Every structure is written in structure tokens, then in C-alpha cells.
């Protein structure tokens, strides 16, 4: 019975192996990555014995692992995703809770600062109140710094994790490569039997690799698996592994992930999306950068606005205010905003810095300055948030070169060998929250006042009033008006020369106010409404025409015909537009002023003045007879004419004449000198119609300069007025020589840097004053400071500082919320994938118990076959024996 014995033996061997396999499954039930194994058995080929095919027992064919490659791959992908989103989530949650919490965020300290400033508005001279503002500024600054530090330490912890994760990736890759070699060898040795445990171990390593970084794989026919990163960079090829490491990146955003392939090194940070590395890099690029920049932007906008307001104000000690917070454009800050790429050509000699000119236009993006070629002088500037081209040009010509006007920024290239291929990362806002500091230490230095004080004379008769006065932007250091230390110099007095005209005079000597340079006289006043005193055009200049002097024996003023050209150059575009005006000979200053005022950007005024004495011998037969502009001043029909004619008499006659009044002509007399003025610039033409020989008019001055001459009987003399021409910013006046003695008369700066308004109905002789403010009880600037809280300072004037911050918090909150949801989804997917894999490959103990019973029973039965075979043999022996 060898057949039966063999059959029994084959059953015993097969079932014994079955028990071993089951036992192995039970023993490895809790081993991660273990795939349950199954005994593959097959019927032995049967033997034809005439009566038919007789079975030969069982053969063990193989021990296979139960695994589904699709599920294993899926698990790997889901592991990458889940780890990335969970790391992203835990990091963003830290930032979110830091910024949103009222005890660690910015909102409370920001509110506290402005609340403290409000106490300054309530009580500007109160020192403890001022100290509160300094303390609040201090804690605001330290809150900015603290947040910067916290985010920096989060950033460096990201770097640390990147380094260790990269190392682990390298180790794992080496493990996979080694296993590849062993598997290839085992497959060759095992005649096609697969080395199950090695494959399980390799799958486990690949899963751990996927936990660090997103990978893709291909399987070779030899059994080896190749591993690729990102968009196909090889990490493992067969039995060799490449190294993953880290390196500092351009800009200051921490480390880049670098794949070393032989001697080449590839920066693959942008390709990494999954696993630990993907989560960390995603957090750093999407969240941390934005938070740094947004905080920095808030610091810059706030610091700049507060500093500008401070600088327009006057402090408790009467000095012009100083910056409360760090200057945003300090040399250190401006240079720190640029980082040169390490691949730039040697030597590293480029000097450049970035200034912020307009904080309202500031974005939170970083920028890149690229010298793209052709040649070394062509550059472009790209905004990294949306890759938009914001500036381009050439740097031909010497240094310095400024690249202007994009997003409120200005790049200054100071020197160095800029070359094609040079690349610079520009981070305008990144470090601002680190550099933000409060730099005033003494509470007295808070500038709550405005350095202008106005007043009216106690002797005023009319109901006129003057506004409190404002300092205008760009005030400090104006050529006239506000001095470089911010005080108003000289003090001004405004004196009404009639109910509708006034002069503004230098009141340095209150006993003797003198004309300003350039003069500001005969300004028209409209009673009953607000009249601004000064032009608010910071580029305003004034040109004054020359006097023709007294023209004796002439009824006309003697000005030649001339052409005046006003050329206005637009500061932005550089385009010039000329306007020409032809003025006829002998035109009065009044008409010339009207013509000039018709041009764009020009306001012209005119006035005429002449001083004379009347010399009436008063003894002859002929009574002295005089006329002014054709009006008879000595008409006896209007009342008795004194002999001799006096200055007082002429004054009264001139001032009583309706026609002369209509031309704005009036006269003053101090008993001997007769001063005749036209506030509108009419020509003044005097004639002695009749009189004795020796009766004269003796002139001493015209239009403010000495002009001596004598007018005899029968003579006529005429004087023309002078023009005061105000030119808007960029406008230049040129003229053919005439009224202006030179072709290009010099223009004097006329912007004063402050403003006040006159209201009501003042009377002749009423006086108002403008002096430097002392700032002790003045809260006007504190008011402006407090108003900054609500002012829309950022994002092109669309958001206040608090709004920018709450936008940041809500964006971050939304992002965190999204991260939480996707983390939950990804971990559910991972669980699902793991469950799918486990349900195929995992060990079920109940199943194995059943198998154990199954194999045990079959074993027992196989043993029984041998027993039967033995008994049969014995029976046969007995029968024979």
C-alpha cells in the first residue's frame, strides 16, 4: 500500500504546513504591515492504473501572502494626505488661537493705545495721562515683537522638523533600496516563490515614507520598486537611493528641501505637497508668510500714520513732535527688505534698499527683482502673490537709480555690478513687526497741540473771526511759513484795508508790521463766508512784476506790448503744456491781472500806489485845479476849496468820489503826504489843469520804491500798477521784456504750510493774528491722533487698521476651519483605506482558530490514513503469514 501511505504522508505534510502558516498568522496578528499568508495546495497528478486514474495525494505548491496592490497604493496616498493635513492643522491652530485670543492678539493692545490717546484729547496737559499713552505704545510695540517672535519660533520649529523629516526620508529610502536588492535575490533563489516578509517590510517602509513625503512608485519585473518624488524626481531606483536634505532659501523664509542626485541638487520644495514635509511647507508658505507680512503691514501703516501726525504737532514744551514709533524707512529697515539670491554672480557688491513711500498702497505680497536681460541693464519687478509684472526698465546711466511707484514702494539701487541673471527677493513688510518699537521716553514729547495759534485783536469792531488754524501736510521746512523746527516764522498779522480787502503782514515787530516776501496784500475778502487765507498748493510760487515808474507827460502807463507764456509741467508724466497771452501796450495792471487769471493754474492780483505832496503856493491869481484819472478833484461845485489846497482836502475828495471808489482807489493823508492806492491795480493819472507858476505835485515814491519827480501846471503824470502772479505747482512764467524786467523773472516759493479761515464781517482796521502754537492746552493734534483708529489708512483707503487685523483673523479662522474639515476628511479616508487593506490582508483570529481546527482535523485524518495503510499492510501480512 505505498500509494495510500504516500497519500497519507502528503496530507500530513500539507496540513502540518497549514498549521504552521496559521500559527505564523496568529503569532503575527499584531505586527504592523504583516499580510496574512495562505498555504496553496494542489492535488498531485493521478496515475492511470487500467481501471482509471487513481489519486496520488496532495502537493504543497506555495505559501502566498494575501494582499491587494491597489489597496496598498491607496493607503500610501491617503497616508501622505492625512499626515500633511494633520500637521497643517495643528500648526495653523496655534497661529489662529494666538491671534484671535484677546489676551495674546493685537486687538486689545491696539484698542488700549487709542483709548489712552483719547485721555490726551480729554486732558492734553495731564502728565500721568500722557504717560499712559507711552505705556500703551510700549505694550503695543512689545505685542508686535512678541507675535513676531512667536511666529519666528514656529517658523524655526518648522525648519527643525523639515531637517529631521528629510533625514528620515533618506534613511527610509536607503531601507527600501536594500530591501529591493534582497527581494530581487530571494526571487531568483526561490524559483518564483515570493519572499512575503521582505515584501511586507518594504510596503511598510514605503508607507512610512509616504508619511513623510508624497511619493509615486513603479514596479520592475525583477521585483524592485522605484520611488519618485513630486513630479518624477527619483528617490530610489532599484538598489540605489538618493539623499534628501535641506538648504537655506533666498529670502528669509527658512529652509528649502533639496534632493541630491549624485552631484546635482534639486530644490523640490514647490513640488512637495504631501506627508509631514508637505504639511509643514504648505503651512509655512500659505499661512506663516501671510501672517508675518500682514502683521508687518499693520505695524508700518500704524507707525507711519502716528509718526506723521506726531511730526505735524507740537509737544508740551513747544517743540515740534518727533516720531513716536520707529521710522519705517530707516536705513537698516530699508536694506533689510532686500535679500540677494545666493546664485547671483560674484562679487556680492550690489547695494540696494527698498523704501515705502505710500503706506496706503502697500500690499502684503513679497516681490522679486530680476535682471532678465538681454544685457545687464534690463530688469523686471514681479509681485509674487499673483505673479504680476509691476515694474520694468533699464538701469543705464550712473547710480543711484530708483525704481518707482509700484504698490507704494521705491527701490533704490545705490551701486554694484548688477548683472543679467541677478535675482533679489524683496520683502517690504516681513520684518516690520519685529522692528516696531516705541522711541519716545518722555511724556512731554507727545505732540498733542498744533503749532499754530490764532487770535483776533481786542480792538476789532466788526464781527469777523479767524478759525483755529491747521497745519498742512509737508509743512515742516517750507521755505516760508513753517520753519524746519516746525514753528511758524514769522508771526503774521492780518489787517483789513477795507471791508473787502486785507493784507497779510510780517508781525515780527508788532509796532511796525512789514510786507511779507513774497507780499500778500490786497487779498479780496468775501464777507459772510469762510475765506481761506493761503493757497494749499505745496508747489505754489509767486512772481512779482516791476513798476513802470511815474511816466511824466504821459496819460498812459508806458508798459510796452508783451507776450507772457505760462508753461505747466505735470510732475507725474513730465508733459509740458504752454499757454500764451498777448498783452497790449499800456494795459493797466488790473486788466493784465484779469487776463492772466483766465489762464489755468494762475491767480493774479494787481495794485497801484503813489505818494506825493501838494505844493500850492496859494497866492497867485489862478486857483490850483487838479484831476485824478479824469475826475476833477478841485470842483468848487462840491464845496469850498481851501487855499492853499491841502493833502487832507485831496484825501477827502478822492475818498468821496464815487467813480474812484468803484475803481478801488482811495487815499490816506498824514497832513503832508498824500498816499493814493488802487487795490485793483488801476493806473493812476494825475494832471494839474490850472494854477500859478510854482504850483506842483511832488512825487516821492511809486509802488513802494522811491520815485522822485515834480509835476508842474499843465502837466500829466501816470503810474501803472504791479502784478502779483501766483503760479500753481510746476508752472513757470516767461515773458518778453516789459512789465517783467527780465525774460524769466524769478519765482519765490509761496506755500506756507498752514491754513486758517476768516469768517464774518470784519471792518476796516480789524486785525487778526497767526502765531506759533505752544501746545499746552491744545488737543487738536491728539484729536487727529485718536481719529487714526477709525481712519481708512490701509488698502488704498478702504480699511482701518482694526479692520485689516480683523480681516486677518477671520481669514485665518476660515483657513483653520477649512484645515480642520479637510483633516477630518483625510483621516477618515485614511481609516477607510487602512480598513480596506486590513480587511484583505489583516489576520482575523477567529478565522485562524477555525483554520487551526480545520488543519488539525485534516492532519488527524491524514494520520488515520497512515494508520489504515499500516493496518491494511498488517492484515495482508497476517493473511500471508
Amino acid at each position: 500500500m505505498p500509494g495510500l501511505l504516500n497519500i497519507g504522508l502528503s496530507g500530513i505534510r500539507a496540513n502540518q504546513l497549514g498549521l504552521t502558516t496559521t500559527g505564523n498568522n496568529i503569532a503575527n496578528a499584531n505586527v504592523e504591515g504583516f499580510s496574512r499568508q495562505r498555504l496553496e495546495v494542489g492535488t498531485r497528478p493521478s496515475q492511470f492504473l487500467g481501471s482509471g486514474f487513481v489519486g496520488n495525494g496532495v502537493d504543497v505548491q506555495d505559501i502566498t501572502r494575501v494582499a491587494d496592490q491597489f489597496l496598498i497604493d491607496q493607503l500610501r496616498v491617503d497616508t501622505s494626505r492625512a499626515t500633511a493635513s494633520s500637521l497643517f492643522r495643528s500648526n495653523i491652530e496655534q497661529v489662529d488661537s494666538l491671534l484671535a485670543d484677546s489676551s495674546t492678539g493685537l486687538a486689545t493692545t491696539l484698542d488700549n493705545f487709542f483709548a489712552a490717546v483719547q485721555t490726551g484729547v480729554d486732558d492734553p496737559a495731564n502728565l500721568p495721562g500722557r504717560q499712559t499713552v507711552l505705556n500703551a505704545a510700549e505694550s503695543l510695540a512689545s505685542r508686535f515683537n512678541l507675535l513676531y517672535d512667536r511666529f519666528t519660533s514656529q517658523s524655526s520649529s518648522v525648519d527643525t522638523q523639515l531637517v529631521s523629516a528629510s533625514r528620515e526620508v533618506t534613511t527610509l529610502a536607503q531601507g527600501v533600496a536594500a530591501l529591493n536588492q534582497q527581494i530581487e535575490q530571494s526571487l531568483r533563489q526561490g524559483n518564483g516563490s515570493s519572499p512575503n516578509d521582505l515584501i511586507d517590510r518594504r510596503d511598510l517602509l514605503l508607507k512610512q515614507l509616504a508619511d513623510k513625503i508624497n511619493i509615486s512608485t513603479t514596479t520592475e519585473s525583477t521585483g524592485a520598486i522605484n520611488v519618485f518624488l513630486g513630479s518624477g524626481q527619483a528617490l530610489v531606483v532599484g538598489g540605489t537611493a538618493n539623499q534628501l536634505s535641506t538648504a537655506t532659501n533666498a529670502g528669509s523664509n527658512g529652509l528649502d528641501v533639496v534632493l541630491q542626485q549624485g552631484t546635482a541638487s534639486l530644490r523640490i520644495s514647490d513640488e512637495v505637497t504631501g506627508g509631514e514635509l508637505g504639511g509643514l511647507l504648505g503651512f509655512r508658505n500659505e499661512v506663516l508668510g501671510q501672517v508675518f507680512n500682514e502683521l508687518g503691514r499693520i505695524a508700518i501703516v500704524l507707525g507711519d500714520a502716528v509718526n506723521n501726525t506726531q511730526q505735524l504737532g507740537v509737544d508740551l514744551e513747544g517743540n515740534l513732535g518727533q516720531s513716536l514709533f520707529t521710522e519705517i524707512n530707516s536705513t537698516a529697515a530699508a536694506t533689510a527688505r532686500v535679500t540677494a539670491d545666493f546664485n547671483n554672480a560674484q562679487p556680492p557688491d550690489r547695494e540696494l534698499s527698498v523704501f515705502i513711500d505710500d503706506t496706503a498702497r502697500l500690499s502684503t505680497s513679497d516681490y522679486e527683482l530680476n535682471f532678465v536681460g538681454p544685457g545687464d541693464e534690463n530688469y523686471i519687478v514681479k509681485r509674487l502673490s499673483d505673479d504680476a509684472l509691476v515694474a520694468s526698465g533699464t538701469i543705464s546711466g550712473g547710480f543711484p537709480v530708483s525704481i518707482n511707484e509700484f504698490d507704494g514702494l521705491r527701490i533704490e539701487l545705490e551701486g554694484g555690478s548688477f548683472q543679467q541673471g541677478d535675482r533679489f527677493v524683496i520683502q517690504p513688510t516681513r520684518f516690520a513687526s519685529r522692528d516696531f518699537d516705541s522711541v519716545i521716553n518722555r511724556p512731554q514729547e507727545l505732540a498733542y497741540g498744533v503749532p499754530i495759534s490764532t487770535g483776533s485783536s481786542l480792538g476789532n469792531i466788526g464781527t469777523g473771526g479767524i478759525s483755529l488754524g491747521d497745519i498742512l501736510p509737508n509743512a515742516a521746512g517750507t521755505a516760508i511759513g513753517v520753519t524746519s523746527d516746525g514753528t511758524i516764522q514769522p508771526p503774521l498779522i492780518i489787517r483789513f484795508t477795507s471791508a473787502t480787502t486785507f493784507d497779510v503782514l510780517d508781525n515780527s515787530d508788532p509796532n511796525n508790521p512789514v510786507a511779507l516776501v513774497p507780499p500778500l496784500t490786497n487779498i479780496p475778502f468775501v464777507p459772510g463766508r469762510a475765506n481761506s487765507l493761503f493757497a494749499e498748493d505745496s508747489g505754489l510760487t509767486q512772481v512779482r512784476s516791476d513798476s513802470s515808474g511815474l511816466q511824466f507827460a504821459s496819460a498812459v502807463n508806458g508798459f510796452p506790448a508783451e507776450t507772457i507764456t505760462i508753461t505747466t509741467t505735470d510732475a507725474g508724466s513730465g508733459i509740458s503744456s504752454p499757454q500764451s497771452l498777448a498783452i497790449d501796450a499800456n494795459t493797466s495792471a488790473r486788466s493784465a491781472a484779469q487776463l492772466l487769471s483766465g489762464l489755468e493754474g494762475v491767480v493774479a492780483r494787481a495794485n497801484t500806489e503813489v505818494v506825493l505832496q501838494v505844493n500850492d503856493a496859494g497866492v497867485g491869481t489862478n486857483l490850483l485845479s487838479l484831476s485824478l484819472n479824469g475826475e476833477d478833484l478841485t470842483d468848487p461845485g462840491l464845496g469850498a476849496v481851501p487855499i492853499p489846497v491841502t493833502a487832507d482836502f485831496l484825501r477827502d475828495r478822492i475818498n468821496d468820489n464815487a467813480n474812484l471808489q468803484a475803481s478801488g482807489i482811495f487815499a490816506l493823508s498824514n497832513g503832508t503826504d498824500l498816499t493814493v492806492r488802487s487795490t485793483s491795480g488801476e493806473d493812476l493819472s494825475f494832471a494839474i489843469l490850472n494854477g500859478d507858476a510854482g504850483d506842483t505835485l511832488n512825487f516821492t515814491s511809486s509802488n513802494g520804491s522811491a520815485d522822485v519827480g515834480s509835476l508842474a501846471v499843465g502837466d500829466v503824470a501816470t503810474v501803472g500798477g504791479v502784478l502779483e502772479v501766483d503760479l500753481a505747482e510746476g508752472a513757470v512764467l516767461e515773458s518778453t521784456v516789459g512789465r517783467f524786467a527780465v525774460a524769466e523773472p524769478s519765482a519765490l516759493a509761496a506755500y506756507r504750510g498752514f491754513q486758517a479761515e476768516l469768517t464774518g464781517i470784519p471792518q476796516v482796521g480789524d486785525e487778526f493774528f497767526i502765531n506759533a502754537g505752544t501746545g499746552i492746552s491744545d488737543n487738536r493734534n491728539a484729536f487727529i491722533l485718536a481719529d487714526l483708529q477709525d481712519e481708512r489708512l490701509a488698502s488704498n483707503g478702504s480699511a482701518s487698521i482694526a479692520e485689516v487685523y480683523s480681516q486677518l483673523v477671520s481669514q485665518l479662522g476660515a483657513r483653520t476651519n477649512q484645515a480642520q474639515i479637510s483633516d477630518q476628511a483625510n483621516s477618515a479616508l485614511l481609516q477607510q483605506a487602512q480598513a480596506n487593506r486590513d480587511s484583505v490582508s489583516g489576520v482575523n483570529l477567529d478565522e485562524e482558530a477555525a483554520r487551526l481546527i480545520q488543519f488539525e482535523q485534516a492532519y488527524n485524518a491524514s494520520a488515520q490514513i497512515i494508520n489504515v495503510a499500516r493496518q491494511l499492510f498488517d492484515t495482508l501480512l497476517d493473511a500471508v503469514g
Partner: protein
Amino acid sequence: MVDRISSLQFFNQGVSTLSQRFADTVATQAQIASGRRVNTAADDPVAAARILQLEQEQALRQQYLSNIDNASSRIELQDSQLQAVVDDLARVRVLTVQAGSGTLSSANRAAIATELESVQQDLLALFNSRDADGEYLFSGFQGGTRPFEQLSTSVFDYRGDAGQREVQISSASTILVSDSGQSLFVDIDAGRNTFLSSSASSNTGDAGIFNTSVVDQPLFDQAFPEDYNIVFNSPSDVTPAAANFTVSQKSDGRVLLANALYEAGEPISFNGLELSISGNPAEGDVFAIESTNKQGILTTVGKLIEGFGAGSTLDSAGREQLVANTLTSLDNIEENLGFAQASLGGRLSTLDTTAASLESIGIITDSRLSELRDLDLTEAISRLSFQNVILQAAQQSYATVSRISLFNFIR
């Protein structure tokens, strides 16, 4: 649904489900403990942004309320000072009427003048009063400068400015919390034309002006509103060399008195006005005379003192005129102060209504804030107990299922 579950899978899943249920329960418990629904911005990003805004509004509102408190106390302080001024002026009126009685002897009048002097000093002290921080109340923006300086009995200099301080009391409105001494005590209609005198700050001598009065009103009115300068010339301009001065009109420089000899205390008169200069004027000293139709309170009282005092040269007609002028001035002063007090009262009531409206808006904001941020406790507690039930069920069922094993039956 997979129909094969490996043992490890069962254990792993059991553990992770249990820990999730536990995490849910703890989150609800944390909400209940803090009383807030939104603990971080991620809990409800939209509400979180709104909460930040509302909290800022709330902080501002608190600030406005404290501004209103400060403004009220400042206005009340001013009001009480003004009331003291009004009380003093009532005494001035009584004394003026009393002094106008023709039956008084010059000694009686001098006694009245002495009492008036003490009232005037009291008024001066009130005008120069300071707040708790030592700031002068009535000097406009020049809070560090004593606003009223006495130069002689009836000549006072105002050294403040016309500044009026504003305080923000709501996002849309501000209120004035100060009035300048000039508008309260100086710019008061005199009822007739008069003049102010002052000595230039550049003067080097120690001379001062006193006993200023309009002696010929029609003549003065004719020249009105002409202003004058009195300039002291070089003593060598006259022979023998002596202190001398020139009076000229300010508008056209006309000389009214040329090189007049200076005699201390002697009246100088021109164009209907009269004044005296005493002391030692130096060459180049300037005294300015400004015509005006206004007269300050202190000057009104000062002129009364000069008119009734021991050295007065006024006859009875002059005294009658002075009493009449003073009574007119006092009427105007009372009107001016009455107006100022009414305005202060108006501001106080504005402050009250603004405070009330701020508080009611505050209540609305509070409830909105609570809606956004605070937890519905009933809902949260019932949620917690429901989660509790689930957690317990999960634990029990897990324990039960995990005990089942075929190995238990292999004996």
C-alpha cells in the same frame, strides 16, 4: 461594507471611534466651561470677525462715556466759576448804584472804591483760575499762560488765545469743553465807543498807562475807529533835552501831537480821549491805543474804581455818566455771561442725552455680541448628555464584542 474584518482592524477602529466620541464630549464640556460658543476664530470665522468689530465698538463706547464724564466735570467746573463771577458782578451793581447816589461824601465813595478793588481782585483770581492739573481754565490753548495780567487799575492784558477745546463724545459728534477768556470776559459790548490801551512788549522803560477815559464822546466817535500810537522819542529831539513823545494815527501816520513833553501822571488828551502815563518811559517805547466798542469786565470795574477813588478828578456830572456807562456795561456783561451759562447748560444736557443713547446702543451691542459669542446653555447641556449616552454605549458595546473569540471555545 467589507465582510471580513481583521482582529487588529477591529481593535484599532474601536479605539479611534472611542477617542473621537470622547473628544466630542470634551469639546462640548469646554464650551460649557467657558460659556462661549466661539473660542477661536476657526470655530466660526464670520462671527469671529464680527465679534472683534463689536468688541472694538464696545471699547470705543466705553471711551466715549469716560470722555463724557470728563467733559461734564470740566464744564461743571467752568459753570461754577462763572456763577461766582455772576455773584461778584451783582455786588458790583449794588455798589455802582450806591456810589451813584449824590448824597455820598468823597470819603464814602473812596470806601466803595476800596470794596470794588477787592471785588476786582476776586474777579481777576476767578478769571485766572486753574483746574486740578494746574492748567488755566480761560486761556484758550495757552493753558500754561496766566491769561489776565493787570497793568494798572483799568488796564488788563489778555495773554491767552481764542482756542476752544473739543472732545469726542460719540463717533459722529464732538463737544466744546472750554471757552476762552476773551469771548467770556473781554469781548463785551460797551454800549458806546471806547478804547483799549496797551504798552508794547518791546518797551524797555517801566511806564504804564492809567486813568483812561473818553472825555468827549462826540469828538471820539467822529474819529472812531481810528487807532493811535504814542511813541517816545529821543530826549535830544527837544531843547532842553527831556522825555518827549509823539502821538500819531495808526492808519495813515498823521501826527496829532509832535514831541510833546512828558510829565508823569499828567493827562494827555487828543480826539476826545484822555489818559495818563506814569513811570519812566525809555526812548523808543510804544503805547498803543485801540478804539473799540467793547470793554472787558475788569476794565469796567477798574474805571469805576478810578472814577470813585481817592485821586479822582471827576465832577458829579462825570460820575453820573460813569455810573450810567457802567450800568449799561453790566447789563451787557450779564447778558454775555447768561448766554455762556446757558450754552454750558445746553452742553451738559447734550452730554446727558448722548451718554444715555450710548448706553442703550451699548446694551444692544452687548446682546448682539452675546448672540454671536455666547453659548446656548440648554442646547449645550442636552448635547453633552446625549454625547455621554453615546460614549457609554460605545464603550459597553466595544467591551462586549471584544470579549467574543472562537478561542474561548477551543478546549
